């Protein structure tokens, strides 16, 4: 082989995947850039996509006010929201998997999203009546905040039920997740029953998961929480790595385990709450993205978390493009697309792990 005759450059040490991981992060970043630009240019407008984009970006006078509105008020918020949600969902998945020491943990699968959904539905339905004061006090943050509370409550219950002495049983976790989701679903059902016609329409669309209603207001409501969580995530990475050796060993290695767990649970609940509040139930991003990346670069959270954020954002934008084009000019809720792709993928993971799962 040619490579063998070339002078050897400095090789990474055997078993050290950090160089590969850095490269993967770079590639995920590039991918996100490409997908984001394409999404900005892609849509039902008749103007040639790239020309339109170029004109708007370069500030050329040649473009019409209509094009400007299409890009700035419709596509750009949608792309930004897609990036935020995709990144937040993938990172929450990865953090949750590290926390539960278990690659099948995902906010959507174990009922955290359902809990957040209940919080959000309550505000949508009762926002004008019983929860009026809350909405008045928190304004646009009422929805993400109540979703956060719902997600937090479910996470805490889940952790209490599924984890004994720092060990999480996969079966208990998934079953507890089913119970929690059912419970949240039941209460959500009550809310739906109480809803009026206009609220019902809102709820249906929201429940399937969609980026369609992306506005700058929604971004303003969700972005602060998501950005804070994304920035906090890297600080959890070392602790989560150590945690994969078990709680006791993580403690022996110097990790403040209790604080790590608290921060991780709150961060996941906050990020999931914000996502659910603005875009409904978009599933499987949190399980597919980290899993793919672990196959590629290994489980080191110092690389896994940033790579998940970038790849999650890119994949969600891609899914959004699919959801917009598959039945154009109408559009499918994006949650349907992610579930259609993610659920079989999940089954494939189960199939591969069947031997070790021990359910």
């Amino acid at each position, binding site marked *: 082989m040619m490579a063998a005759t070339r002078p050897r450059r400095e090789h990474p*040490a*055997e*078993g*050290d*995947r950090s160089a590969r991981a850095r490269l993967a992060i770079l590639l995920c970043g590039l991918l996100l850039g490409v997908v984001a630009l394409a999404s900005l240019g892609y849509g039902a407008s008749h103007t040639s996509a790239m020309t339109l984009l170029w004109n708007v970006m370069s500030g050329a006078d040649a473009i019409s006010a209509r094009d400007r509105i299409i890009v700035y008020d419709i596509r750009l918020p949608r792309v930004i929201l897609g990036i935020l949600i995709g990144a937040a969902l993938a990172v929450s998945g990865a953090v949750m998997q590290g926390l539960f*020491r*278990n*690659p099948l943990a995902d906010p959507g699968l174990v009922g955290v999203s359902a809990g957040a959904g209940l919080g959000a539905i309550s505000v949508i339905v009762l926002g004008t009546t019983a929860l009026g004061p809350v909405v008045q006090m928190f304004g646009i943050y009422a929805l993400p905040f109540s979703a956060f509370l719902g997600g937090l409550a479910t996470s805490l219950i889940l952790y209490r039920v599924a984890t004994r002495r720092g060990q999480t049983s996969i079966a208990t976790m998934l079953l507890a997740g089913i119970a929690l989701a059912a419970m949240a679903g039941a209460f959500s059902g009550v809310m739906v029953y109480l809803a009026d016609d206009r609220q019902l329409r809102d709820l249906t669309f929201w429940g399937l998961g969609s980026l369609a209603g992306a506005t700058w207001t929604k971004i303003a409501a969700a972005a602060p929480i998501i950005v804070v969580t994304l920035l906090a995530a890297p600080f959890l990475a*070392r602790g989560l*790595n*150590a945690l*994969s*050796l*078990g709680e*006791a*060993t993580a*403690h*022996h*290695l*110097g*990790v*403040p*385990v209790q604080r790590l767990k608290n921060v991780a649970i709150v961060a996941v609940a906050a990020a999931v709450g914000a996502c659910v509040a603005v875009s409904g139930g978009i599933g499987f991003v949190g399980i597919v993205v980290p899993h793919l990346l*672990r196959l590629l670069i*290994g*489980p*080191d959270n110092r690389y896994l978390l940033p790579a998940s954020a970038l790849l999650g954002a890119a994949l969600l934008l891609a899914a959004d493009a699919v959801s917009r084009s598959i039945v154009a000019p109408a559009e499918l809720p994006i949650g349907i697309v992610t579930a259609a792709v993610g659920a079989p993928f999940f089954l494939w993971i189960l199939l591969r792990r069947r031997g070790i799962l021990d359910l």
Partner: protein
Amino acid sequence: MIEATDLDVFIGEKRIVTGASFEARPGEFVSIVGPNGSGKTTLMRALCGDLDFSGEITFTGRSLSVLKPWQLAGIRAVLPQAASLSFPFTVREVVKLGLTGGRSGVLPGEADRLPERALAKVDLVGFAGRFYQELSGGEQQRVQLARVLCQVWAPVLEGNPRFLLLDEPVSSLDIKHQLTIMRIAREFADRGGGTVAILHDLNLASMFSDRIYVMHRGRIAASGTPAEVLRDELISRVFECAMKVGVPTPMGMPYVLPQTATIAL
């Protein structure tokens, strides 16, 4: 120095260890022996700061209860009796987790090569790229030990001795690697650190220890040098089988003692 006085250790409501007094000095290899369920692991977990206890545990004069996790990580490293790993890390990545606290005590430039050096020490050269979960039990145990060594690579840091707390470090190793690991632990003590090891092999305990603690039903039944502790009456009573120390087997039945081994390192 690790010092425990009048120690009661609890798991939940249950008192497992009663009235233990324990001491591990720098430069010393201390073994803890005793039958299954006698409380050896529980005592060690209390020393690690994992369990509730009453009484007093101090590390070089500072009370365990005021030391933060990161401070403790700079004073002692722990090899658990059973280890688990929940994601597919490579051997090198597992060993590198020992550097989490960042107080291994080598120059900044050297930390990068530390996993390789630690793996070489435990005789696992060439294993760095393998997946931990695909190793044999004994190999996994040695990887864990390499990780522990990385954490407190220098036995003395900034004038303070550091400690290895090893719960059955050689339980699944062949005789050569038992000796390899015991020598590493012994050398750690000789270079100014301290080693505490739970052992089931009385011959190894006798061969390497400065002092031995014998545990029985949650209490410390005896302590002292190997010669003081390994007496017929005591070990027969504690282990509940009549045994004689230093007596050859009847009828010329073969036996092999680690003391006779010479191995190249």
